[in-house]
């Protein structure tokens, strides 16, 4: 691989109160891929992302962004948290939330100026939310809230994006729109790392894949990694209905979510 590594994780072990959640995980993500992290509930996907971002301390191992620790590469990284991680009844509007992505650049004490407002509005427009700029955030639908979070990450103008389930609670049209946006970002040379839950759409949306279940199961190009064997390893033999690498048209699962419960 001659591309530089956007993200490199070595021997990463993470535990909450002595209960290991990630065991000795290795991962290499080359620049410019659109990658899915897939695994059952409780597999540690969110934890992996949070550890990369320094939000959760690691018990062992290291994380490198373009060869440097996260603290040195912060400006290169954008983060889209799981939507449920904040209280959407907070008294503020959509534009204000997007502006939060610029606070660090604005600096201490100073308030956002006209220029920053314009950037935030542009970013809202990119996710199709321009006309909701003044809307109180509790009055947005789940999918719209998700897009506000995306806009906040876009305005960070990062190189590497980490997104925790950006498709959760989003309708089909919005999902397509977000995928189109992610592809645009990839075309601009950005690296996107996305926690994803829908096995049906993996091959269609993504070109890179990591299967995770406490341990690193497999990672690499989707065509190589998205195999029945690997899926069985990740999900504990309960995904017999998935037809790996089938096009999304004929590879439909009737109820994909119900098959994702952790086996054994």
């Amino acid at each position, binding site marked *: 691989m001659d591309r530089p590594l956007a993200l490199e994780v070595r021997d990463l072990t993470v535990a909450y109160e002595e209960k290991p959640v990630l065991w000795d995980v290795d991962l290499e993500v080359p620049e410019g891929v659109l990658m899915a992290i897939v695994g059952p509930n409780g597999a540690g996907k969110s934890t992996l992302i949070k550890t990369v*971002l320094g939000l959760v301390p690691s018990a062992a191992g290291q994380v490198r962004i373009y060869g440097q620790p996260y603290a040195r590469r*912060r400006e290169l990284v954008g983060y889209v948290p799981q939507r449920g991680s904040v209280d959407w009844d907070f*008294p*503020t509007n959509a534009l204000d939330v997007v502006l939060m992505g610029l606070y*660090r650049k604005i600096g201490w004490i100073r308030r956002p100026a006209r220029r920053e407002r314009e950037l935030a509005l542009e970013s809202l427009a990119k996710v199709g939310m321009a006309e909701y700029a003044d809307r109180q955030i509790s009055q947005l639908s789940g999918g719209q809230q998700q897009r506000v979070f995306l806009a906040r990450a876009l305005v960070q103008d990062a190189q590497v994006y980490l997104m925790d389930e950006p498709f959760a609670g989003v309708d089909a049209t919005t999902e397509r729109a977000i995928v189109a946006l992610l592809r645009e970002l990839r075309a601009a040379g950005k690296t996107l790392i996305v926690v994803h839950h829908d096995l049906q759409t993996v091959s269609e949306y993504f070109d890179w894949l990591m299967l995770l279940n406490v341990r690193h199961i497999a990672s690499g190009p989707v065509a190589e990694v998205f195999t029945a064997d690997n899926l069985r390893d990740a999900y504990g033999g309960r995904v017999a209905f998935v037809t790996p690498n089938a096009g999304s048209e004929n590879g439909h699962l009737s109820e994909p979510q119900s098959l994702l419960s952790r086996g054994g």
Partner: protein
Amino acid sequence: MNLGQILHDLLFDYTLRTVAMGSAALGLVSGVLGAFAVLRRQSLLGDAISHAALPGVALAFLLTMSRAPLVLVLGATLSGWLGTLFVITVTRQTRIKQDTALGIVLSVFFGFGMLLLSIIQRMPTASKAGLDKFLFGQAATLMSRDVVTTAALGAAALLVVLLLWKEFKLLSFDPAFMKSVGYPVRRLDILLTTLMVIAIVIGLQTVGVVLMSAMLVAPAAAARQWTDKLGRMVLLSGGFGALVGVLGAVTSAQVGRLPTGPTIVLYVSGIVVVSLLAAPDRGIVAQLRRRRRQRVQFAAEALAIHLLNHEGAPDAAVETAIAHLRQHLQWDESFAERVTRRTITSGLAERSNGHLRLTSYGREVARRAMAR
């Protein structure tokens, strides 16, 4: 005592003016910081801090034998802080949950404070008197040196809030994201909590440790009802705090030796109740009215669907008779009437000699509703 007299005294009576200014200042500061406490779900922490401050007041007095406000406030701050630190450390380092840690701090510190107070009461010293006002508050004993201390500390706290406005906003909304972009979140958290401790201790003498947390939580909860903007909520909360501070202090100072804390709580409860009930949008009345309107609207659409289903069918004459609808759709009389009226006023159907007939608009709405 009439209102004109009170207003006159507020302006010209030195004692009353002092009391009013002091309690307005502390109400403003605790209202502003209370808004952040409520948004960060730290209302109970405020209660624990204020109770934890009591032994600090008593110890500061025992050690210095002085009742200088700065000395007592310093003691209160230190022990309030110690209590907070205990809560934070215990929740982070052990499996004890936050509410348990808060309960421990509140009762242990408060019990210890009461013990010290009773020791002080028995001491023969002349200057001992008056520390028990820290329990339920006594605004009438406010002196101008107290007001100066309150105003100086409060102004400093408000200045910090003003300067770090956007940082505190982000800290309250999404601390994880804030940390990911490189802010020293832990330190900002400690700073904001410290400001909360300051807001509490400057109110202790006036409001008392037992009810001080009401000054923090109630104005903020009321303010949240009226607005969806953080800036307005904080201003309104500060305004409510100042208002009930003055009202409570003046009332208790005028009416014998009524303790100030409970008096203030009485006033602030009034504001909370009105806000919960009457606020536009978030108020209970507005919500009930909205829910009722939605129910009628939904029923009107259901009625349109019913009409569409029977349109042109052999039983249409029976099924669309207004008198029949009530019985058929199992609606009581007044509701059926409201729905029928709504169906007509919103142009879904027309009345023609005792029957309802869909308009073309009504037909379209019904089709679309069924397709959902």
